[in-house]
């Protein structure tokens, strides 16, 4: 084994580490720019969030160092134990969690408070990797597939009990990692299609969806013409899915909205997307309220966030010149809506670069995953990529009105100790495992 001869530092993946550091620094500057006042004297003022974020970064790097000097086998051997610990922590949190805006997902220990759901991602990733790398696991059997899915989703259920749905959804992203390990294609396709179709049928008119669906079906027919002629099953699948999609978008969604859901529920769903409720779905009381002009501004967050990002233009307003983000117009702009400050200050170019950095990091992690000798490391790496992907996709989507506002952070950029620390640990464990990629870890 040639790699073991080299020192640990030189065996670390430089690109991943660089991407990590660049993103963290961008995050610090973003939090700084949001809080900066022209009257401020000196850096690292007391009471400013970027000061505490810097401290969190210091802690994260320190923990990262510890991880790097830990034996890589320790992660695999302690995985189930850590998972058990995490589950217990989550259960405890259900009962003793601090009440923050109706959710009980924060634990208070002395002056510090943290979100176990955030940390538990690491344990779940490790446990999943451990389970799949066990020699007795055969992922082609339904039983083991169900166990794997259960490992991934048990924390989600507990977190939903804490009333923090957004965070719970993150655990569904492990499906991606499981897909890599052999879950059938159809699950991914069907799951993806349902999500897209659901959002589309809320955002677009029925006619538009009908046209798009028909267009997609026609494209498939043209592309698969020869195979369709031979394969009756394929024909059935195509026609069936087209029919189901039409049924869902043209009948199920309107029916649900008109007859089943209450006015406030509809309001909630649309405000999460940052959209006005279409008139067709408005109940009588709401119409009256609209006419009186007393409608509450439910989608204030997304509206302000879109204004901030949209006003950035091509090159942005410049560092520290973001009029919307600097002056508190976007709520939660240093945590969930940190992307606004990038979009406003650096415009399309800055946003595109940031997206490039994230996509680069995820691709790099998937490349790292594929070069692992041990299944444990590979599954773990894909788990990290999946979590990153979910956070990245949903967070940015919600700031630009593509996804409901479910309160999950932008990895490494958002202000918050729990989030930064857990992502740092995820990545440092990955770096540590990758440094020993030639070693077989079980």
């Amino acid at each position, binding site marked *: 084994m040639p790699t073991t001869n080299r020192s640990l530092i030189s065996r670390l993946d430089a690109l991943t580490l660089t991407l990590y550091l660049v993103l963290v620094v961008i995050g610090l500057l973003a939090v700084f720019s949001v809080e900066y*006042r*022209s009257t401020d004297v000196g850096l690292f003022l007391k009471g400013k969030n970027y000061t505490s974020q810097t401290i969190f970064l210091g802690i994260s790097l320190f923990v990262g160092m510890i991880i790097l000097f830990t034996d890589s086998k320790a992660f695999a051997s302690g995985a189930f134990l850590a998972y058990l610990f995490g589950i217990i922590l989550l259960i405890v949190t259900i009962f003793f969690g601090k009440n923050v805006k109706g959710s009980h997902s924060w634990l208070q220990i002395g002056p510090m408070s943290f979100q176990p759901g955030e940390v538990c991602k690491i344990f779940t990733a490790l446990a999943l990797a451990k389970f799949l790398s066990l020699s007795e696991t055969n992922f082609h059997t339904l039983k083991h597939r169900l166990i794997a899915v259960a490992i991934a989703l048990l924390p989600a259920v507990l977190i939903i009990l804490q009333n923090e749905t957004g965070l719970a959804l993150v655990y569904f992203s492990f499906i*991606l990692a499981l*897909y*890599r390990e*052999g879950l059938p294609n159809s699950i*991914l396709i069907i799951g993806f299609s349902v999500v897209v179709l659901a959002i589309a049928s809320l955002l677009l008119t029925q006619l538009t969806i009908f046209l798009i669906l028909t267009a997609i079906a026609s494209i498939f027919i043209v592309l698969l013409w020869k195979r369709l002629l031979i394969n009756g099953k394929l024909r059935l699948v195509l026609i069936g899915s087209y029919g189901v999609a039409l049924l869902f978008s043209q009948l199920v969604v309107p029916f649900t909205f008109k007859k089943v859901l209450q006015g406030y529920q509809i309001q909630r769903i649309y405000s999460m997307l940052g959209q006005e409720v279409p008139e067709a779905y408005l109940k009588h009381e709401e119409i009256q309220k609209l006419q009186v002009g007393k409608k509450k501004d439910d989608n204030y967050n997304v509206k*302000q966030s*879109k*204004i*901030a*990002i*949209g*006003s*950035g*233009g*091509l090159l942005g307003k410049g560092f520290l*010149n973001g*009029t*919307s983000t*600097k*002056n*508190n*117009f976007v709520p939660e702009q240093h945590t969930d809506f940190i992307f606004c400050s990038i*979009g*406003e200050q650096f*415009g*399309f170019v800055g*946003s*595109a670069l940031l*997206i*490039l950095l*994230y*996509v680069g990091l*995820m*691709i790099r992690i*998937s490349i790292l*995953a*594929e070069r692992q000798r041990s299944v444990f490391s590979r599954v773990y790496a*894909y788990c990290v*990529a999946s979590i990153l*992907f979910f956070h*990245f*996709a949903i967070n*940015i*989507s919600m700031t*630009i009105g*593509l996804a409901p506002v479910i309160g999950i952070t932008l990895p490494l950029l958002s202000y918050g100790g729990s989030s930064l620390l857990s992502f740092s640990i995820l990545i440092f464990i990955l770096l540590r495992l990758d440094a020993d990629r030639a070693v077989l870890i079980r």
Partner: protein
Amino acid sequence: MSTAAGSRQLVLRAIFIGMGLVLLIRLLFLQLFEPKYKIMANDIAIYRQVVYPPRGVIYDRNGKVLCYNEVVYDLQMTSNNVPRDFDSSKLCQVLGIDGNTYYNLHERAKWANGPMRPGTFLEQLSTAQAARFGENKYSFPGFDMVERNIRSYPEPIGGAFLGFIGEISPRLLKKDRFSSYQQGDYLGLDGLELSYEEVLRGQRGVYFKEKDNYNRPRDSYLKGALDTPAVAGQALHLYLDEKLQAYGEKLMQNKLGSIVAIDPSTGGILAMVSAPSYDPNLLRGADRSKNFSRLYQLHTKPLFNRAIKASYSPGSTQKPYTALIALDDGAITPAFGYPCRGAYYACGRPVRCTETWAGHAANLRLAIANSCNSYFCHIYRLSVDEDKFGGVKKGLEDWYRHMFLFGFGHPTGVDIPYEIGGTLFDSTDYNKLYNGSWNSCTNLFLGMGQGELSVTPMQMANSLCIVANHGFFYVPHFVKSIGNNPKDPSLARFLVKHEVTNIPDTMYKTVTLGMMDVVNAGTGRVARLPGIEVCGKTGTVENYAFINGKRTKLQNHSMFVAFAPRGHPKIAIAVTVENAGYGATWAGPIASLMMEKYLTDTIAKNRLPLQERILKGNVINMRQVTLIDSARRAADQARYERRLQNAAVSDSVKRAYDSLVILRYIKTYLLPKK
């Protein structure tokens, strides 16, 4: 498995890249193709702060300040910055208010601008309050003193022409002149403050600031690249003599009427008194509207500037102009005489004259000196009935033209607003009045300044300047220079010398000599000043008012016009005292004392008793004034109500007509025909 795994890793990477592309496309549209977000971002985050420069100071001819800006302190409160456990008792002690008042003020300030922004807690702190607050400021978080300028007047004089400032009204906002103003701006509402608003106000500074989600101003926008600094207002230097003005207001106390004194050589106004006068300090700052309505309610109407807004029949003060017109038309010569023996009989009903002795109107100079009514009625008739006009109507046209040139019948154009033009009838007006059948006998009273003629004290003084100058005048005005520049474009119209007619100097000389005789030997002897050739003319004007529905003759208006010295006139003055009696009793002494004060700077010892009599004299018949004013106000109210009623009636008539039309339509087209 390896190929499957290989394709699956590619699928995952495709998903990563695909999501990135979706986000990029959405961002592309959001940031590059939807400009509305830029506008919205500016709307919510940029705040236009207007900074008001101090208004210009107003000085008199000797550099004495008439009006300046006083810095006062308002106490502001930002409700959210006041701690919950704030001990208000100490603040109450410092400000000298009780707890209840504190509560009310607190609530008012909190709701005025919302809890996040500063609202005015207490206006215009007294010096003691401000000092005590300043010392203890640290113990009152959320409270702050802010500076504000208010107009202040060192002497309680000049309210009539200085005017006042106040918040702009919605009606004014619609005017072109004030289109650049915004709701809440202050501007001059009357007097010089209004006339020279653009000069006094200076230029507002505009600063663009970023604001936060609670509308609190933060940093300057784009580091102040778009800001314009404020430019201070320019000072006004007046012709007015502060001492003379103060003396005039003192002389006019307890009287109704006015004084206008003009320097004939420049047209500069030396004093303008409207009695009763008021302290301009009443109409400033926090108590302005309260004091304004109190002054407005007074029956003596102190807010009514009698010098430019009241018009009276000129009475005998008209006689010099009648003479000049007759001379100019060639109707008479200075040697013309009229055998008056106490009345004028030529037009049926006799016109009484105060003098009865023979020869009191043997020539023009004597007639002026003795103020012979018959003489002036006669020469008025002579000038309008002259053959060259071919009829009294053409003759009156000529007379009207002359009078107009002398400055009657139209505003003089003085530089304070709301001046009226008085009354001056031409032939058309008389045709209307008398249905076309009238002759020089119908309106012969015009010659002695009664009848369909009324002039403002401003016009009297201005026309007197023409006589004093022997034929020219400058439009009367207050402002000598704007910010030390006497040639400011807005003063250009006051620098134009107006030549009135081509009446030769000799004729003016005759008239002025007659006026000098008035003072030296005639009706106005009270106005004589040792060593100074004073020319004057008394006026005693009959006037009537409806009291309790009856036309009642009131006490005569006392009038006096004078200028001095005769050769090089330095002051021309017109004094009116309403319902006071003979011109020589009240107006004459006042005019004379004013001239003496201006020309010699003191009052001679032997004239102190006269001054004493004037100062002590109270000629306001309060009961009568109250009756007349109440009746007038009642009439105004009734007129207003009648107008409302008429509008309501015409509206219902229209409605009734409309329903008739509809009924007819239904009958004609919709109902079945029999």
